[in-house]
């Protein structure tokens, strides 16, 4: 068998069923008008013709998970004596993410550096990541707002994927990316894909050219520190932001989280749940002090994290995969690519300063401006 497989379109359900034999298969399914990754079953409607509304990040990094359960126990002979029992159960089944887009898969690589490639790896993420096979579908055409090619990705970028599929008229060309992915070629319904490889590559190249690059001609955006640190800039560009968490929760690369104890009587769990740097509460301290009290500061941190801080730590890798969801689904159309584009032009400070009237303060406050 060659290095390339081929899955005829009519066999896609059989393929998924085969995968589902020894794994939970998450596939993009139609739910009302939107597409979500759901454990696949016969009753569901597969939807592969556009990226899912939410990335598959919750499969490996659930929105809320129990880090451990605790239980207070009283000694039977002495009710004054109380001990605590902690139970951390990281049991994870084998999982497949089917039909993720390359940007989604790349997102997991952003997470890997933080959660796994560190001296304090996160066992929960790691276990799920190890147990998950990521089968990606390359994009034949861009989606509204997306810009993967501008942040080091592309519609057939393979980073993060175990298998890359490319859609042709009659089926999908299947290219294993990792050793783990190679096993998929052995599945019954997979035919030899070698004859189609060229066509697939053609599709991929065509798609690559169609994706917009807001930062062109730069290969990767370089951010002007002085504009980045200029408050007036943020006040102008994110005045309309409503400070919700849609962008971060739909982002394949956002990973900020919260840890809380949720308790019943005498027992409970320590829960890790997604959090959003756009929320006021995110950094609110017990004293009432908040180091990032305004949405401007919070938005700046979000952009900074993706385009400055993360690259600083990880050899220039931008923590944005250009999927465009934050743009598409933003309640007020805040466009991060536009903002970053402004930021990379080092001569714009004057422009930003002059567009504000002399001596006036920003008029649109955050919800908690002081």
């Amino acid at each position, binding site marked *: 068998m060659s290095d390339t497989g081929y899955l005829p379109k009519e066999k896609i359900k059989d393929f998924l069923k085969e995968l589902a034999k020894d794994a939970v298969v998450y596939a993009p399914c139609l739910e009302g008008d939107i597409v979500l990754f759901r454990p696949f079953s016969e009753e569901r409607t597969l939807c592969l013709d556009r990226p899912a509304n939410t990335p598959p990040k919750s499969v490996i990094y659930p929105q809320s998970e129990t880090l451990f359960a605790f239980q*207070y126990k009283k000694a039977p002979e002495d009710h004054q004596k109380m001990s605590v029992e902690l139970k951390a159960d990281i049991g994870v089944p084998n999982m497949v993410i089917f039909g993720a887009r390359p940007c989604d898969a790349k997102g997991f690589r952003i997470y890997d550096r933080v959660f796994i490639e560190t001296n304090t790896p996160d066992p929960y993420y790691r276990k799920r990541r190890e147990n998950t096979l990521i089968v990606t579908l390359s994009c034949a055409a861009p989606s509204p707002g997306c810009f993967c090619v501008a942040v080091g990705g592309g519609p057939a970028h393979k980073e993060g994927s175990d298998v890359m599929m490319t859609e042709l008229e009659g089926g999908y060309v299947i290219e294993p990316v990792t050793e783990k992915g190679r096993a998929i070629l052995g599945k019954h319904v997979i035919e030899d894909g070698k004859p189609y490889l060229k066509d697939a590559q053609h599709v991929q190249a065509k798609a690559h050219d169609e994706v917009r690059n807001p930062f062109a001609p730069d290969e990767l955006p370089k951010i002007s520190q002085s504009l980045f640190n200029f408050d007036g800039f943020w006040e102008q560009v994110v005045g309309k932001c409503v400070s919700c968490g849609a962008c971060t929760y739909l982002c394949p690369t956002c990973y900020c989280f919260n840890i809380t104890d949720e308790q019943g009587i005498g027992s409970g769990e320590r829960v890790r749940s997604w959090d959003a740097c756009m929320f006021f509460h995110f950094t609110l301290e017990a004293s009432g002090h908040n180091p990032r009290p305004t949405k401007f500061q919070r938005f700046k941190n979000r952009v900074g994290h993706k385009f400055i801080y993360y690259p600083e730590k990880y050899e220039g890798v931008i923590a944005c995969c250009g999927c465009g969801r934050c743009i598409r689904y933003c309640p007020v159309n805040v466009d991060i690519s536009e903002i970053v584009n402004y930021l990379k032009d080092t001569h714009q400070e004057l422009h930003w300063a002059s567009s504000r009237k002399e001596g006036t303060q920003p008029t649109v406050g955050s919800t908690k401006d002081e």
Partner: protein
Amino acid sequence: MRVGVFICHCGNNIAGTVDVARVAAEMRKLPGVVYATNYMYTCSEPGQEEIKQAIKKENLDRIVVAACSPRMHENTFRKTIEKAGLNRYFLEMANIREHISWIGEDKELNTAKAIDAVKMAVAKVMKNKPLYSSSFKVNKRVMVIGGGVAGMQAALDCADGGLDVVLVEKSPSIGGMMARLDKTFPTIDCSICILGPKMVDVAQHEKIKLHAYSEIDEIKGYVGNYQVKVRKKATYVDWTKCTGCGACMEKCPTRNAYDNFNFGVAPTRAINIPFPQAIPKKAKIDPAFCRQFTKGKCGVCAKICPTGAINYEMQDEIVTEDVGAIIVATGYGLFDLDKFPEYGAGRYPDVITGIQYERILNASGPTSGHILRPSDQTEPKTIVFVSCAGSRDKSLGVPYCSNFCCMYIAKQAILTKDHVPDSQSYVFYMDIRSPGKGYDEFTRRAQEDYGVKYIRGRVSRIYPKGKKMVVRGADTLLGTQVEVEADLVVLATAVVSAPGAAGMAEKLHISYDTFGFYVESHPKLRPVETNTSGVFLAGACQGPKDIPASVGQGSAAASKVQALFSKDMLESDPAIAQVNTNACVGCLKCVRTCPFQAIKEEELRNGKKVAKVIETVCAGCGVCTSTCPCGAIQLQHFTDNQLLAEVNAICQG
């Protein structure tokens, strides 16, 4: 946290149907509970002592007592734990008696319910925070509203105790209903003869400031510091000049003014002094009748007045009185005759009310004490008294007994016989209620010594027949129809709340029942207190009562005020609303809903606008807390988290 749980047997009251030992054992399993025990009578002195000992020995920091209703003993146990050094708000009670052991028969179910109840209390007490009251100065001045016998007694007792008293009376003279009575039962002594000296005492007491012919406009503040706006209604007579000589009244050409004092038995003058013993004995003009006001010309009184006291331009005057406590003695009202279509609804002049009859009997009344019936001023020979005219009649909205009618009917019947020896009185009654000292003997005397005929039954109709009034009713004892041809019919109309009682209650922030009578703090144990601290009740404003009861309450209310004022500083209840200024967004919805205007807007140093609770005004209802969308204003001791802890203990526990 080290919670101690004390389960009370209450003798067999609880232990009889709740397995208290098992409840205690279950509590010992709860995290945070380091001590749980059951005890025969936790509220007894040894029981309380045990709590104190356990707090010290076991180093307890929060206490749950599962026993009777907290309405019964919460204060007891709060004091107990306070004596042991804990903040009083570290106590929670679980009501396993009234709410469990007394109402459920199945011991198994009761025990399970008790376990839940105590668990809830434990869950809540773990969320409790220490609260500290702050203290504030008391203005040792008391206002008495209402100058009837109850109010006068209260005013005199307070004043004799050295307090400054402001007495506010709505009508031109103090004296109230009692001043209108002829004689009082069961002693038949002259009402005004015993009341008059008291009225003079009030007038002459240097500690009493009297605002007659005045009403309450507005009451602000809180116990110890009330500000009351008193409206001194225009009398059109300068009382500083009026000597009460009565010349104006004599010469007044308007002779058809309604006589409030005599309940319209006869007309009076447009300028009048209500009655000879009035305090203050001053004239006032009734502008509804005075020709100067209705026609724009007359001026007779102004011409005649030897001191030039008449002032037609006079306006109402508002004075503000600062007081520390208020005694409400606003008395009662009476059912109108027009409520009784079957009795002629006030159309027949010879069907009158009991109080009107009092005035007819009274030597200083319109008939100078001669019993003359209103229609033709002849002496009636057959008089019918109808008791329960409205009282105890659900259909008329007066399901209650008016308390003293049975007694005054007997009195009036006796007096009638004295005045007109050849008269015959009949009394239609439902039951004769005469439970007071010497009362029953009195009603018997009416029947046995004065030949008053008592007919048990309701009067169904009264209608005229020539000069007579036919009173038709049933004799339920004989089971026959009865008809009496009477010269005069006296209805013992129902006692109702004073006109405007509800409005007054709202100004005072006290509760009133469906009938408009004011509600006391506790029907047995706190009969003169209200739920608004610093406001006390005396007399019939709380419910129909006779003279001795009213006087007794007047004295009781006075002693309550004395006790309150025995301290220079008062402590505020710390279980009030508190604003977390970090969370408050300044929407001020709480300001809108606070029933007490206890919340105002405040600007913080950083310019942020937030809500602020005026501690001394907040009554602790928590309406603000359930109004606030962001949980920023929390009623202490009943915070969202405290109530959620209880909800969770039930639903998730």
